[in-house]
């Protein structure tokens, strides 16, 4: 399959599925996504000369991808919707969204194609700029299209942030951490204790979030220290152990009794609120905006975007520094690294605590955002889901982790529930009882993570978006960029 085909097929499948599952005005969004994916992939593989040529090439493929969106949208609007909701009219909306998706897909893909014809460093900057623009404009789109996805998208970004932190530990330093959610819990609970009436400390969230990150970092050191002498697989199991102990402890520290030499120092002290969790947790306050509110997600959205931007910036700096090199050297060969003067203990602990810091930060934000925390949000499957996010996109690669994280999180939080609803509605009238009972969102969720891990490990261990170097090594021989480029020129 040549790479242009692969580009529009990928974009088209993504867009088409989104349109099919969500229907309605989501079609526009599906078009934009299809266009973006197609445009980026085409631009990456085909060399164009002028912006016009680039635009045309991008738009052509974008339109092909848009056809998928159109088909998905029509299938949904004309075939499925009448079954699940016969009284629903709105055929106009179906056609508008279908055509809109098609056009937007072509347009967006064309834009990315055009931008890519700029000279070398600028094309990348512009592509990134375009994506940032789309991300910044999303709340407006959301309102315009009445999508109401904002409340799902904010936690998605929080989890992607955590995946970036985990990527430091797993991707850079090569330490498989199966208890990463523990630091998320520690961050969230620290905020919960400091910025809520539970202990009577109603600290401002702006301060609590930093303390939470610091506390998580310290726990990273404490829990990291015992694992230092362990080999990779044992280390993974021990981190899993800590990841289990923390939620158990949090769940059961609601009636804390401490006896020292027979004196009851602490009696029935409720530290963590047990399974009820802690709430309400304070929210951030800013001049002009006032206190952030649960029913208006936009300030939260921009706040987490800012945190995300800073995190990416700092992680990139770490990666390209002496410390980042030490992490990667340690991942490649611990013994050789120590013989080259790298202090393995320090380097490992630094990786653990840096990873924990990001997770603690994310936990603090999350706690404040949902205004409550429960021990059940930090179970083992959260750690595994984060691991999936890191592995799907490509370990050790920031872009890969973000893309992989977005795919898994959006699937988990938006599309699986929608698919589940859709299927349930479809089978509501059928005779097959089992199908009515099935809930895709909860009954297939774990399967999805599991399959992701097995398939990625066995078939594409480098991830969906490997760094160029790893790709070259794992797939040498099938690089047909040049062929594609000339082939394209002939057809044009």
């Amino acid at each position: 399959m040549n790479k242009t085909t692969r580009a529009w097929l990928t974009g088209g499948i993504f867009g088409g599925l989104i349109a099919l599952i969500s229907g309605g005005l989501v079609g526009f969004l599906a078009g934009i996504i299809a266009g973006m994916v197609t445009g980026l992939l085409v631009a990456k593989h085909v060399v164009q000369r002028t912006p016009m040529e680039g635009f045309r090439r991008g738009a052509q493929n974008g339109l092909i991808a848009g056809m998928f969106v159109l088909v998905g949208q029509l299938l949904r609007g004309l075939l499925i919707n009448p079954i699940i909701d016969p009284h629903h009219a709105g055929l106009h909306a179906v056609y508008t969204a279908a055509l809109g998706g098609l056009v937007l897909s072509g347009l967006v893909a064309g834009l990315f194609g055009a931008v890519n014809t700029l000279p070398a460093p600028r094309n990348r900057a512009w592509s990134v700029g375009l994506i940032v623009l789309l991300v910044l404009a999303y709340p407006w789109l959301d309102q315009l299209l009445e999508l109401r996805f904002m409340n799902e998208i904010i936690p998605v970004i929080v989890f992607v942030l955590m995946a970036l932190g985990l990527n430091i530990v797993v991707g850079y330093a090569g330490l498989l951490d199966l208890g990463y959610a523990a630091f998320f819990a520690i961050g969230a609970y620290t905020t919960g204790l400091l910025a809520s009436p539970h202990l009577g400390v109603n600290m401002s969230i702006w301060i609590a979030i930093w303390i939470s990150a610091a506390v998580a970092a310290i726990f990273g050191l404490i829990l990291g220290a015992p694992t230092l002498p362990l080999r990779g697989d044992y280390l993974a199991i021990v981190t899993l152990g800590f990841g289990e102990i923390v939620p158990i402890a949090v769940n059961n520290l609601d009636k804390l009794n401490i006896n020292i030499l027979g004196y009851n120092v602490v009696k029935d002290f409720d530290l963590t609120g047990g399974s009820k969790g802690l709430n309400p947790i304070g929210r951030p306050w800013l001049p002009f905006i006032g206190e952030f509110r649960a029913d208006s997600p936009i300030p939260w959205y921009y706040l987490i975007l800012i945190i995300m931007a800073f995190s990416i910036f700092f992680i990139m700096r770490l990666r390209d520094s002496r410390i980042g090199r030490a992490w990667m050297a340690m991942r490649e060969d611990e013994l050789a690294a120590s013989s080259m003067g790298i202090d393995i203990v320090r380097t490992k602990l630094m990786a653990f605590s840096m990873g924990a810091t990001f997770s603690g930060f994310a936990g603090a934000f999350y706690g404040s955002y949902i205004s409550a925390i429960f021990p059940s949000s930090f179970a083992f499957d959260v750690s595994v889901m984060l691991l999936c996010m890191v592995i799907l996109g490509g370990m050790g690669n920031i872009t890969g982790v973000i893309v992989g994280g977005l795919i898994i999180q959006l699937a988990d939080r938006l599309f699986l529930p929608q698919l589940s609803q859709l299927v349930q509605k479809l089978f509501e009238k059928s005779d097959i009882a089992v199908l009515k009972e099935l809930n895709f969102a909860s009954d297939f969720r774990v399967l999805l993570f599991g399959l992701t891990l097995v398939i990625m490990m066995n078939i594409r261990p480098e991830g969906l978006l490997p760094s160029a170097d790893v790709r070259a090594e794992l797939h040498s021989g099938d690089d047909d960029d040049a062929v594609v480029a000339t082939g394209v020129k002939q057809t044009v």
Partner: protein
Amino acid sequence: MATQSARTSAGQRTIPWVWISRIGIVIFFVLFLLVPLIGVVQEMIANPQLLARQLIIGLTNGAYIALIAMGYTLVYGIVEMINFAHGEVYMIGAFLALTLVGIFDLTEKTPYSIRVPMLLLILVITMFCTAMLNVAIERLAYRRLRNASKLAPLISAIGVSFVLQNAGLLWGYLRFPAMHGIMGNNAVAPKSFPSLLPNDNILEGLTAVFGENFKIRLAGKDLIVVIVSVSLLIALYLFIQRTKLGKAMRATAQDRSAAELMGIDVNRTISLAFLLGGAMAGAAGLLVGLYNGTAVFTMGFTAGLRSFTAAVLGGIGNIAGAMLGGLLIGLISALSDQYLSAKWTNAVVFGILVIILVFRPMGLLGEEGGQKA
């Protein structure tokens, strides 16, 4: 490179920070474990009958934990990977056994003359199926990764465990008429086994003779679980020690490439390890289902954790060690269930695991500086 790092971890010197971290961990666990333990000891002395009952439960738990631990230890001994999915194979075993009980329509009223051969048949079928399942898992999800880094098969195994767990969840939806409604009405809820094992107190007579102070409950099912488990374990041990295939396994565990040069089919030997481990897990699934009377799709994680800890405690790769470890972990978790509270038991088991791995990674019966440790 793998051999090099194994060598250095064995020969590496003790460095002060290791001790610092060890001291830290001791403080951590003293706070969490020892302080409550003082009260626990008092409680134990106060009621020896309860203690005796808990020890019996611990013994039966230990028996099935040892069965599952075999799977971890056999596989680790040969391919040096933690088969994270093994606990889920056991869970599938329990579900399969439950389904078969439903299909054969065994109930409390079935006479023993039919019940016993049927149960034996179910045992054989379950063991066979889980053995095949385990072999298939190795073939599909691990074999390709044998020469990759150590983490790749572990990650794949975590994936498999999630897939199996989800399969267990979906299994709950199966409601064929032939199953005689054994799955109940709620797919996700724990399933109940009919009580097919004798639950009468064998020691009733003792109370009659020695009076109320000697009132210990030992049910027929306690004995059955222990006897079946121990005979399976002995059979496995003899198989590995005495037969030619068992020798091939031990040789492969010692040195895979040398074994290959000696004409041992390494792929087949590895499959055999998974086969035996899977069979043991299946047997454990049936026994636990009958003993506890329930099966739930999340049961694999906890059981897997305990069994893995047992295998590590005894010295991973060491068959006798896994048996000893299983017994100890069974006793500890039964005591913890009773005297601490069931919700802390997993934390206790994990705490033990962490302590062993940090202080004595070769386990109780492992050799110091041995290759596998």
